[in-house]
């Protein structure tokens, strides 16, 4: 096609100009960031790569499961992209075991990842002492958001600091005729609410025993029972239209002040921002209950499939250091709604919820991995099935406990 055009037009010079930067490192990057805010955020990564001297070839696939399925099949079919996005979890463990990824040990050493990355993320990207993925974002999935106007209307003066106070506030909202809890009844969202209750009411120890150790005794314990019944109690505060609702439609209920609370990840900030709502003025964010509430970390990371070409390897290494750089991380986080992966970034320009998150992250004892850090995608899915079933149906708590034990020890 280009050759045909060149016959018609005197564009030999243009072709020469295009051929020249072919020596530049060139990396095809496969990811699932396609919504408005996400696309803007990923552009900052591409810009950083370009500034570092590389050519970013963008392959965006909508839907994270679809994107990962495409990445896996392309890797198996010997047509791997230079970089592919995964959640910082066990999702790419099999790729590591099969020797399909390059290690980033030199980049990690140079940037001092051990010192600046949070522990749960390190655990996901570092396997047997080698580094296999470059983290790009840290999300916290279990923030409790609230509409200031709705709470004022219902006569709730101060933000709740415990589950008891949360239930009091929910009751007041209900009495005022508002939707107390804006919730999208999809399995993954039910799962987020459950994790919020487990981390805040059950506490760090129980959370780790359940998800990391998959300890049957902990899951059968009275504490776990209480977590499950509290989770179920929240169900009585959602509206009839909840089942099947998308998370952003639930956020819209907060934006229009028709609902009081929503338990969801910090990606909802993008929804608030696009409706010109400001944290502190229009909406509030509660990271958890108590001065030592755990801060759950859900990260995204790029992996770099092994290839035989030295040029690709060079492009991959350059990409790994470009996207984890300080300035890039700051610009990216501001648009993505996440917080920077590294602790050595000045975050004073980020919004107040992000700053709150970063200050909590400084205390390493409050950092807590996402359940996916320890559970295989399969176990995680089985857990989600059980929880969504329990959320929607009348099941005995003991049955649910038994089922969770069976699913996690399978």
């Amino acid at each position, binding site marked *: 096609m280009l050759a045909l055009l060149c016959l018609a037009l005197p564009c030999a010079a243009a072709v020469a100009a295009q051929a020249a930067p072919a020596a530049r490192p060139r990396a095809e990057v496969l990811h699932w960031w396609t919504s408005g805010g996400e696309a803007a955020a990923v552009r900052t990564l591409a810009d950083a790569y370009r500034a570092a001297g590389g050519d970013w070839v963008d392959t965006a696939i909508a839907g994270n499961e679809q994107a*990962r399925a495409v990445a*896996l099949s392309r890797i198996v079919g010997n047509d791997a992209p230079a970089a592919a996005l995964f959640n910082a979890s066990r999702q790419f463990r*099999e790729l590591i075991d099969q020797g399909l990824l390059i290690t980033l040990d030199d980049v990690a050493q140079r940037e001092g990842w051990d010192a600046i990355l949070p522990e749960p993320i390190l655990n996901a990207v570092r396997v047997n002492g080698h580094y296999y993925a470059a983290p790009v974002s840290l999300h916290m999935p279990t923030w409790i958001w609230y509409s200031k106007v709705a709470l004022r209307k219902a006569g709730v003066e101060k933000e709740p600091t415990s589950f008891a106070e949360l239930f009091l506030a929910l009751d007041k909202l209900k009495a005022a005729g508002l939707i107390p809890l804006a919730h999208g009844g999809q*399995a993954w969202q039910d799962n987020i609410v459950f994790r919020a209750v487990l981390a805040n009411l059950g506490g760090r120890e129980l959370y780790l025993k359940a998800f990391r150790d998959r300890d049957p005794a902990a899951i059968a314990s009275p504490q776990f029972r209480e977590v499950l019944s509290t989770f179920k109690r929240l169900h009585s505060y959602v509206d009839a239209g909840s089942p099947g609702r998308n998370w952003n439609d639930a956020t819209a209920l907060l934006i229009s002040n028709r609902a009081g609370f929503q338990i969801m990840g910090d990606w909802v900030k993008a929804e608030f921002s696009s409706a010109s709502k400001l944290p502190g003025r229009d909406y509030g964010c509660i990271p958890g209950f108590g001065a030592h509430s755990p801060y759950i970390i859900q990260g995204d990371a790029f992996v770099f499939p092994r290839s035989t070409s030295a040029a690709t390897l060079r492009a991959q290494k350059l990409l790994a250091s470009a996207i984890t750089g300080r300035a890039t991380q700051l610009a990216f986080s501001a648009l993505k709604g996440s917080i920077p992966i590294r602790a050595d970034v000045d975050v004073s320009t980020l919004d107040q919820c992000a700053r709150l998150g970063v200050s909590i992250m400084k205390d390493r004892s409050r950092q807590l991995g996402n359940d996916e850090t320890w559970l295989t995608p*399969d176990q995680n899915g089985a857990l989600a099935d059980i929880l969504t079933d*329990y959320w*929607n149906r009348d099941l005995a708590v003991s049955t649910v406990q038994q089922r969770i034990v069976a699913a996690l020890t399978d």
Partner: protein
Amino acid sequence: MNTRRIDRGLRRAHLALVPMALVALVCYLGATLWSLRISLSSSRSFPVSDFVGLAQYRRLFSNERWLHSLGNLATYGLLFVAACLVIGWLLAILIEREVRIGGALRLVFLYPYAMSFVATGLVWQWMLNPGLGIQEAVRRWGFSEFRFDWLVDQDHALYTIVIATVWQASGLVMTILLAGMRGIDADIWRAARIDAVPAWRLHLWVIAPMLAAPFATATLLLLTGVAKLYDAVVAMTQGGPGTASEVPTKFIMDHLFGRANIALASAGAAVLVLSALIVMMPLFYARARSNRRNA
């Protein structure tokens, strides 16, 4: 001379069929066998070639969601096939009798079949959503006690999928039966008119038995639709509320990709294909026999 030409024509016809046969053999049969092999391994994200016997099948049949999905599919299949056949048949009769609105009905009921369910499913979802759709509309007309919240109801969500897919597929049944009716000897219709047989008796006792083959064809097509039910569920309920409207194909797709367990997904696919064959074989057989008898 003449027979040789026919022979050559036949050979050419067979030659033309080779590509299709190859595709069927390699892509369908080959892939089916490959899935069967995978279902006997311990594969997760990637195919591995070990052999674990029927372990995946044991896991499958101790999985609550899978069993529930199979039950859902049976309920759905019975209701869907029965409703499609009855509605499609009634529509065909109406059009055959040249009822005035027949032309409009034909368009209304065949049109949905031409549309993708991912698009129409979304519209159904909006219509059935208690806060946005029919319920809200009727309430605004003044019937404030009106309730139609099946979509978000554990016990009724599956029926909304039946409603929407019957709407989509009964036009197809209508067309097939109509074609069958047009093929029935004109003398029979005339004789019925002369004898002044009531329309319902004519159709129920005379015409319907003669339509056995078209009915079998329609049922077969509907049953394949049942086995591959996926898009309607994803578009309308995503298997919810909870797991109330989960179906086997969704279980398979979830495990194939998101949950990275292709061995379990393959075991599920094998069970699905096998049960589909068991249900459809008698129909195939009956149809083949009646064709042979007619020929």
